[in-house]
């Protein structure tokens, strides 16, 4: 299935755990340090450097860009480290997250409550994934280097729906199907 980002409620409603999706459009990049700053900004009652309403955040910290390329290698990082911040961002309108790995229960609850979606990209397929990124621009926190907040334009960016708004969980389903005694 091909979808575009920013996401609409109608599109999110069609997504189910286990679906293979290709995303085109705008996605934002933020990992540990940027998330900490975003949430601290909200806590102070200030405006975020970018409007995340309807947007997707990709948990990623690229390798440096070689001359002539758009970006360096750009695979997902472990999402669980952003669990502490994710519900707060969904509360202000974030609609999608891309990463890899397990989410904590409060994040899964927030996905249902705010009708959002968590996608997994293939961890370690970073050179391959970079080919789907057409533009990259640092939007804030440049001094964080690989952890800066970036805006990407992507084309057919391949992901799998892990947690959908209905409570579906592709990790749990997959494991149940293939576990043996």
């Amino acid at each position, binding site marked *: 299935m091909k979808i575009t980002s920013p996401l609409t409620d109608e599109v999110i409603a069609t997504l189910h755990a286990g679906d293979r999706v290709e995303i085109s459009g705008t996605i934002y990049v933020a990992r540990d340090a940027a998330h900490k700053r975003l949430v601290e900004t909200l806590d102070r009652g200030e405006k975020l450097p970018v409007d995340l309403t309807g947007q997707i955040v990709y948990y990623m910290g690229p390798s440096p860009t070689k001359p002539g390329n758009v970006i360096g*290698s750009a695979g997902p990082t472990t999402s669980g480290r952003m669990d502490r911040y994710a519900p707060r961002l969904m509360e202000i309108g974030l609609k999608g997250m891309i990463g890899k790995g397990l989410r904590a229960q409060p994040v899964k609850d927030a996905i249902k409550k705010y009708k959002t979606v968590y996608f997994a990209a293939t961890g370690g397929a970073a050179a391959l994934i970079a080919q789907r990124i057409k533009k990259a621009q640092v939007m804030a926190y440049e001094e964080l280097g690989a952890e800066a907040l970036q805006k990407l334009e992507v084309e057919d960016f391949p992901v799998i729906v892990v947690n959908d708004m209905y409570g579906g969980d592709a990790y749990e389903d997959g494991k149940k199907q293939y*576990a043996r005694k």
Partner: protein
Amino acid sequence: MREIQASQITETVARLAVEANHFLGDDVVAALRKAREIEESPQGKDVLAQLLKNVDIAKEGSFPLCQDTGVAVVSVELGQELHIAGGGLNEAIHAGVRKGYTEGFLRKSMVGQPFSKRVNSKDNTPAMIHTEIVPGDKLHLTIMPKGGGCENMSALGMLKPADGRQGVIDFVTNVIDKAGSNPCPPTIVGVGIGGSADQAMWLAKKSLLRPVGQPNPEEEYSSLEKDLLEKINNLGIGPMGLGGRITSLAVHVLVAPCHIASMPVGVNVQCHSARYKEATL
């Protein structure tokens, strides 16, 4: 006494850092190919095909295998009859990491302090250096760029001697079960049994420097590796945790003598981007 220059060490470490991040070992590639054949889950097969494509792109030299080009874990075997001239061993290694990661466009992932001063050192130093003095007049260097995602799944169990073999199997399997999709399966699981707490953890990591497909030379431990691998792959976690037959490509066990009261078990998980390169000077 044989002599080498510290600058040779720096150049070698810099070269190995770049090579390790672009060229996955033939043993791991072969294991991924075999996994793609065996894997029953269509999504798992697709993930493995993507990883093999990724290996080919990284080889061309423009993009490293993974954006997480790791902490530079450097294992050193220093012959006691070798003299290093023109600088210190550790400083030469750090300088090599600095050079390789900077000139090679590799990601700098080290912060100087763990809490409020989490400031990036901007050159990926310091390296994590493990030095062993050995007979001879050679210097053997191995660099293993170790990603944070898989390293975070490490665990130490101070088991009781009475827990025995089954206790080890239960402990390790539980660690991998809990890690789920986090460490980028299919993984290689390093297990260090015996020694002290710190030694068991190092053995677990050091075991990852053995080629995939080469079992522990002692039958007791190679059979433990086999049984652990079967248990782990029966968890059903599969490639990238989406369900499947192949959760790990291999389990590597290393053992050491320990106290009569102890049975430490260290677990160090390596992602499918199981990178390391070595050289002898």
